[in-house]
């Protein structure tokens, strides 16, 4: 080919592109693609690494939990596992990617309950992930919420707090359990309260410590170090029973407000996963969740084990969704969504 300084015939380049693409397509026909977000494979399970998808950025508690789970599952599955982070849309991006793939057991996701139980109350989504899109494998974790005020706050207990003319409450974002729990609590009592959503737990902590907001509901893992150091004071917890870590803090129910909110995570695969594989993965995950490393991470993060079988996960999800929707409707709490 001649080397010219000016391109006289761009058509030649177009043809070259066409040929290149054609060759590419030709070459690749009949090959198996591994990895990526829609890989396939042949043969007995597991014939390639089992992919655990995390719907968050690396580094958070659910990432750590999934990594520990994937590592210990490996031993009980006679195969390798890998962890893929696919953050986005409160878990929907990860869900869409995993639940639209082949139900061959090679792709599973650790999904949050909030996407199904709180999400619909907050955002109108024309194409939500339905429970029927998933095969539930096993319940994994329960994370609770603690209502905290800064140590310097004049409010000693819940009655103090609810007696205010106006409250600003911090949440870790729209669609989080902390937002729902506080909206319901203040909805019960008709306290004029404005929710100030922050971008995750860390910034919310900063805001409540600095007195930018009067009160916030956060996970124990986020607030316990500050409670121990005397920077924050717990008011109530939103679990059904008192927490081991905070035996002196009453639950919302004890205080007379029927608000029980928690965040749960579960392992799920695309709908239509054969029972044999559900059992196989479930059994491996069962063994993995009693692994020492996994338990240590849970303990250090004040996360409780959620030992639920497939059917129980499904009923929990639909029950909590129903309960939250009914409560917010009855209390007239508007979180922004339609349902």
């Amino acid at each position, binding site marked *: 080919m001649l080397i010219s300084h000016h391109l006289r015939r761009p058509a030649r380049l177009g043809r070259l592109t066409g040929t290149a693409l054609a060759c590419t397509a030709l070459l690749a026909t009949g090959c198996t693609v591994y990895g990526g977000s829609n890989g396939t494979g042949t043969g007995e399970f597991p014939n390639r690494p089992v992919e655990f998808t995390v719907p968050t950025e690396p580094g958070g508690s659910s990432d750590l939990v999934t990594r520990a789970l994937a590592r210990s599952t490996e031993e009980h599955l006679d195969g390798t596992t890998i962890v893929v982070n696919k953050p986005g849309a409160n878990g929907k991006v990860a869900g869409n990617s995993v639940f639209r793939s082949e139900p061959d057991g090679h792709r599973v996701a650790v999904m949050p309950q909030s996407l199904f139980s709180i999400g619909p109350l907050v955002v109108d989504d024309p194409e939500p992930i339905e429970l029927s899109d998933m095969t539930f494998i096993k319940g994994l974790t329960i994370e609770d919420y603690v209502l905290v005020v800064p140590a310097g706050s004049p409010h000693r207990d819940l009655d103090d707090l609810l007696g205010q003319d106006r409250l600003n409450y911090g949440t870790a974002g729209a669609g989080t359990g902390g937002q729902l729990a506080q909206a319901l609590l203040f909805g019960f009592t008709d306290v004029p309260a404005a929710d100030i*959503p922050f971008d995750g737990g860390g910034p919310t902590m900063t805001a409540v410590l600095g007195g930018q907001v009067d009160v916030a509901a956060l996970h124990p893992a986020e607030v316990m170090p500050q409670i121990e150091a005397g920077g924050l004071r717990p008011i109530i917890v939103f679990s059904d029973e008192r927490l081991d870590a905070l035996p002196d803090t009453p639950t919302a129910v004890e205080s007379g407000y029927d608000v029980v909110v928690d965040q749960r995570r579960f392992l799920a695969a695309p709908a239509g996963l054969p029972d044999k594989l559900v059992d196989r993965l479930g059994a491996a995950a069962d063994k993995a969740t009693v692994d020492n490393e996994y338990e240590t991470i849970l303990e250090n993060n004040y996360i409780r084990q959620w030992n639920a079988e497939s059917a129980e996960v499904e009923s929990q999800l639909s029950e909590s969704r129903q309960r939250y929707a009914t409560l917010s409707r009855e209390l007239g709490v508007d979180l922004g969504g339609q349902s």
Partner: protein
Amino acid sequence: MDFLTPVLEGFGVALQPMNLLFCLIGVTLGMFVGVLPGLGPAASIAILLPITYNFDETAAIIMLAGIFYGALYGGTITAVLLRLPGEASSAVTALDGYAMARDGRAGTALGIAAISSFIGGTVAIIALTFIAPVVAGFALDFGPPEFTALALLGILMVATLGSGSAVKSVVAAALGLLLASIGQDPLIGTGRLNFGSDQLFDGIPFVIVAMGLFGVGEILYNMESVRNARAKIPDVGRVYPSRADLRQSRGAMSRGSVVGFVLGVLPGGGAVMSSMVSYAVEKRVSRKPRLFGKGAIQGVAGPETASNAAASSSMIPLLSLGIPANASMAVIFGALLLQGITPGPLLVEDRPDLFWGVVNSMYLGNILLVLMCLPLIGLFVRIVRIPVGVLAPVALIITLVGVYTVRMSVFDMFLMIALGVAGYLMKKTGFEPAPLVLAFILGGILESAFRRSMRTFDGQLTGFLGEPIAATLLAATVGLIVFTILKALRAKRAKHQPTNETTPV
């Protein structure tokens, strides 16, 4: 001087030969991974995290801190050589660093960047050791109203950063703000301007915007004139910064240290802004502001000092609040959790050896980085000698693959290609991408901080005047606007001709 004891013991820990070795390995690994476009410090640490599982806790953390610094510098290397910034702070370095590289001063730029990082890190660590308790409270005073005022000031600076047409700069900055508003509403959670796409629901990641507009746009632009390859290879020139270079950068470095230290203390956005603010300060202070964007050494020295000073002083919120100040710190402290340690405000008291071991190893990481980089710079600058026809495609492929790995999504590849086309068109029509990219970073901070403030103030704009820090910053903003307008009017009166000079590239 009792409080110094744990600090010195921390140095003792960090200086143990094994730990030093881990730090060195970390810096090296971090630098090589950080060079890959799309893999910023946080992602590099996350990817390399499993390596540390079997180490003891201190060694693991020291290595991760090394990776952090190495990856930071790795991003600077690609920003300077290829205009591919991996994260926000190197986006600013890309402006003048790349111009210097095109000018045959790649070595100078990389050398100054390494030295500046070292200076910034050193100043911040000394300040951290002595005045951390004093400034810790400052971080808590910075709530939504203060951030609103700070971001507003920042955007104003950004809009005036460009070296071309002022109107075009403002348009570009406004487009950056619009781009930042794509995706989930930061408060309510509704999807906005995402055209129903789940992929856009969380907005466009910064890496894609920066690499698309800067990197891919630049590559496309270069491809157009690739046939003039003969003239395209810049000389390598001096490999190391000269004495004069250092003298010129001295002021920028000292100002950058202060800016970086102060802003780094503010959790959530402070560190991101530090390099931008430093750049704006340098351009205003400079007697030759026209040189900025065309290879002003202060434009590299200031921001690099500031971003490293901020990286160190962002340890302060961690020290006082137990809150990781940025994504990288979050991953490092995630690693602490894996080791069975719960990071929190009591960490400094309970485990001073660990805390100061980490802080000091960051410092040592900085020293190792300088010692390691200076000899390697000679190697790095050779990259610019590779013909554009070969270098551009290879850089592009690695960028595409790197962007894919951020969220494992082909959609992001398309997004970056589209932004690359936009970057190319902007370049052809005289719009600078820099104000757009920088406004994109500030846009999210400004909107959410403003809206949080308004909810706190119950919709009363006057609420800002009740917050002393916010009110002061707003006054400074107004002052800056008035000053700029007056200056423009005076310039107009002085000259009746158009003053814009022709600026190819």
